[in-house]
């Protein structure tokens, strides 16, 4: 079976190549068939291979396939080589399966777009890069996928490039993630210098022998890799690009900025878990960053008015949970949360896209309202997605994964009560804004008249995702323990059941608060709007804690200022200065060449006098 491994990323690649070479000539249905078909085939292969993998586990727990030697100089060698183990299998299945659903949805969603082929070409390239990222057997190839998804993200955020704002958003996303990527590649240099290899399996095997726990070098490596993960996964302080990235089409937000690409950081950290385990400091930092991010982004999500920005902040916040889990050493819990999150967040984005399309590109939730009756199917799927996001107990997938993380945040070896409290607060906030979203969009007065309802090509993926948003919590991923270490618990930890009760309570409290504020007593909020203090807090949250303004003052303006000041290249002055001196000298001497005989005679006489004087004085 493993000899067909290459087909999984090759299918989308073929789709991409066909579409960029002939895309303009193909009729729409051919474009759609190539674009979505390639991912569907890839998904079928991936799932078949996954079933094979689980039924007849390979000896070392990994399929691998080496395609060709990439480069080889002295110690440095890298292959274009793929591997598939239990963890990459989870990612591959999610990427191809959700990817296929989103592509099918896009066939209808992008129907009237001029650049139909360009859209599918970029999406296919994205899926290919993302698959390479999670299947790479060495870090250089992983980095190739890593940058590839960044490029596709850039292309798709700026898909409607005529608008300046979209271009700015695309550029911002690329540059901010590039900062993280650069840190990451420096981490790779350091790894190579120390261990002499960039092969993932070799690194994981060598690192514990080579480094002692808490060693400075290994801490640096872990920190640099973490920085890479923070950039891609939009964690504090590199989170500012993700809300703006919503400028892209909704399927893009669903696939790239919710389900797959933004979790690349989670994948990287889980993949390099040995390195992180050797550096307790970095582990703690990861957990703290995750906790802070989930809170900061959650607060921003509470007050947003753009439906996609709410979801974007909630994505940042949910990935914060994953980082928290990684930081306390709950590896499998993080992957499990990734797994469930991918379904319900993709569902939410696709449903939001359907709402936006139906309401003639209206993004503001306060101009929606009363859609419960107009769009029953979208309403039902949306409410399932929101319930999963809010982690409504027992019936949704989000509950199982989030509950596990909260439990480990306290009781895992790296856990701390404060982390747990932050997580719990985050759960409350999540439940609150999910409820707010549902109530404002689907209840209340109708504000905008809906247009044509979405077709079945858009509905079917929603239904499938809704089913998984409920059911995925019951799927267990036991094979992950082949790859990831078991979570170590504190010696004396309280009973899990108590934590579950508290978590359920905080979720229900959040839902209740939302219900009270946005359904039962809406005038309370109107009252709050009078208060200046509350409004300034609200505006602070609304602007994403003013990170953009801070970076603008700290980095963007100084950079632009320096480059503008030196536009004409200050070093050029040296050379033009030399030229000017010579010109002046020339002008000075040419004065003497004026053609007047008297002047020349005088010159000659002065010369003679000068020579005679010299002779006399000698």
């Amino acid at each position, binding site marked *: 079976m493993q000899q067909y491994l290459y087909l999984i990323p090759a299918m989308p690649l073929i789709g991409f190549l066909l579409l*960029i070479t002939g895309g*303009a000539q193909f009729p729409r249905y051919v474009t759609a068939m190539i674009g979505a078909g390639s991912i569907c085939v890839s998904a079928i292969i991936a799932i078949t291979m996954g079933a094979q993998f689980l039924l007849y586990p390979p000896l070392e727990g990994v399929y691998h396939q080496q395609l*060709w*030697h*990439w*480069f*080889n*100089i*002295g110690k*440095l060698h890298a292959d*274009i080589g793929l591997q598939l183990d239990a963890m990459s299998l989870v990612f591959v299945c999610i990427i191809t399966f959700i990817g296929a659903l989103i592509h099918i949805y896009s066939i209808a969603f992008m129907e009237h777009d001029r650049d139909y082929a*360009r859209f599918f070409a970029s999406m296919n390239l994205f899926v290919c890069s993302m698959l390479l990222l999670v299947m790479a057997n060495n870090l*250089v190839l992983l*980095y*190739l996928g890593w*940058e*590839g998804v960044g*490029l596709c993200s*850039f*292309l798709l955020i*700026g898909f409607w*490039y*005529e*608008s*300046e704002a979209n*271009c700015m958003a*695309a*550029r911002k996303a*690329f*540059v901010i993630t*590039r*900062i993280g*990527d*650069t840190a990451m*590649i*420096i981490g*790779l*240099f*350091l790894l*190579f*210098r120390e261990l002499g290899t960039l092969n993932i399996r070799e690194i994981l095997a060598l690192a514990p022998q080579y480094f002692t726990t808490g060693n400075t070098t290994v801490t640096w490596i872990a920190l640099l890799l973490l920085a890479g993960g923070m950039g891609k996964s939009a964690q504090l302080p590199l989170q500012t690009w993700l809300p703006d990235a919503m400028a892209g089409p909704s399927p893009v937000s669903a696939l790239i900025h919710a389900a797959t690409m933004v979790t690349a950081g989670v994948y990287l950290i889980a993949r390099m878990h040995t390195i992180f385990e050797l550096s307790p400091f970095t582990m703690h930092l990861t957990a703290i960053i995750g906790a802070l991010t989930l809170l900061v982004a959650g607060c921003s999500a509470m007050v947003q008015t753009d439906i996609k920005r709410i979801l974007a902040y909630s994505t940042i916040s949910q990935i914060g949970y994953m980082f928290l889990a990684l930081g306390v050493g709950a590896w499998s819990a993080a992957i499990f949360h990734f797994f469930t999150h991918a379904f319900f967040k993709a569902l939410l984005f696709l449903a939001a896209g359907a709402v936006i399309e139906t309401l003639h590109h209206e993004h503001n939730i306060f101009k929606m309202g009363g859609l419960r009756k107009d769009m029953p199917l979208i309403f039902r799927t949306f409410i399932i997605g929101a319930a999963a996001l809010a982690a409504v107990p027992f019936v949704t997938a989000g509950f199982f994964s989030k509950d596990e993380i909260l439990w480990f945040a306290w009781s895992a070896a790296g856990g701390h009560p404060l982390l747990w409290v932050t997580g719990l607060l985050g759960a409350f906030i999540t439940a609150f804004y999910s409820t707010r979203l549902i109530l404002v969009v689907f209840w209340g007065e109708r504000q905008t008249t809906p247009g044509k309802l979405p077709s079945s090509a858009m509905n079917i993926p929603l239904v499938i995702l809704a089913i998984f948003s409920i059911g995925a919590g019951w799927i267990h991923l036991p094979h992950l323990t082949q790859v990831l270490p078991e979570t170590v618990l504190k010696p004396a930890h309280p009973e899990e059941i108590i934590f579950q009760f508290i978590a359920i309570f905080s979720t229900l409290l959040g839902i209740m608060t939302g219900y009270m504020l946005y359904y039962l007593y809406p005038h309370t909020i109107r009252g709050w709007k009078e208060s200046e203090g509350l409004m300034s807090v609200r505006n602070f949250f609304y602007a994403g804690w003013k990170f953009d303004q801070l970076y603008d003052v700290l980095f963007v303006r100084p*950079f632009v200022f*320096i*480059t*503008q000041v*030196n*536009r004409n*290249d200050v*070093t*050029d002055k*040296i*050379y033009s200065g030399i030229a000017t001196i010579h010109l002046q000298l020339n002008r000075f001497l040419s004065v003497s060449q004026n053609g007047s005989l008297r002047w020349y005679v005088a010159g000659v006489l002065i010369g003679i006098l000068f020579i005679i004087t010299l002779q006399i004085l000698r």
Partner: protein
Amino acid sequence: MILLWMIIVLLAGGLLCWLLGRQSAGYARWTALLTVSADMVLACCLCWLYHEFPDKSSWFINYQINWIPSMGVSLHVALDGFGMVLLLLTFFLGILAVLCSWNEIRERAGFYYFNLLWTLAGISGVFVAMDLFLFYFCWEVMLIPMYLLIILWGDSRRRYAAYKFFLFTQAGSLLMLLSILAVYFIHGQQTGLYTFDYFELLRTTFQSGTAWWIMAGFMIAFTIKLPMVPFHNWLPDAHSEAPTAGSLLLAGLLLKTGAYGIIRFVLPLLPEASVAISWWAMLFGVIGIIYGAFLAFSQTDIKRLIAYTSVSHMGFVLTGIFSFSEIAMQGVVMQMLTHGLSTGALFVMAGMLKERLHTRDITKMGGLWTSMPAMGGAAILFTMASSGLPLLGNFIAELFILLGTFTVNVLFSVLASVGLVLSALYGLRLLQRVFMGAIVVTNPVRDLSTREMLIMAALSVSIVALGLYPQPVIDTVHHLSFTLQPLLHE
């Protein structure tokens, strides 16, 4: 002998172009195309033979005939893998240079192609000459026709640019001539054998003080060509005013002769002196990376912008060479090739835009992707190549250089890595100002013609191939690590 033939073919082809150009411009350009293609075929054959060649550490071709025996000057040409890849690049870009001048040049086409081919002859001479006198001769041969190309077919400020180009490079050349003569006489005094032969001169030993001065002469000439900050000022002017093919040859090939000179002459002739300045050279390389990127970011003239990116990329080359690491040295060779392709492609595109819009000002462009989807796609590919995106050759080059430098000097490598972020900044700015954003140009702009498509396709395929399978290049220039063995770490 075949190497001399290659140069003679170009020289003769040039003369023929000049003659035929009087009849018709069409004859001239076909002659030019056939001439360069003939050399390309020869070079490909050589490359094929080289892979069968057993002993990669010795010279593949080594040919010598007397020229001026009384002074010890001979026509000594030799080829190794390093020279081979550069020759291939020369002829490849040469063909593209002819193709991209196809419709651009209407006046005095015969004389134009004469200059183009003679520049190419000079460049290929530089890459194979193993006699310092011959090397210097070829160095000048590539300079003067290039000067003519700029001053006769350039843009509005062509006189200024051409003078600046000539003065800068000529100043460097004269210092190099002094150094060559110094080496010649010192060797003559030591052995009694007065010769310009490279292999003979390699055996010379220098006192450290003298060595330093000789090295300074060579280094100034080569770093002006490279160019290194603060000797880079000729470059933006020359690149922006030159005709498209001129910019292509300048960026793609002339800059590489600087790097070639350092690797071929400075390091082997004067190893101790080179090691002594390595820290400073790396520092200036890093300064170049960052300074060039800062300047590129603020330009509004598309060709000046691309020219400053060259300054930034050549900073990687300088840093890589003087890190004396085997990996970085391979990266330098890769960077020479891939920078030639990617920046060459960007200049070709700038030329195509100028032909259509009659401006180089990016503030007057915008939203061109709509009318030119193919060119927009190519532009994304090559700006991304220039920003070091994996999958494309430039990434391999920069990865090797940074990785190699990292083992030697962590700080410089980290600072140079900042160049990756900066390159994204200027690259995206270029891309978005020209191809994205609101549609500024109202009159219809046609997309790539078949000829232009061919040029871009050739460049795209090469840059992707180098990114996905760089091993053949690595194997071909592997012998450099034997030649420079005493200098390299590890």
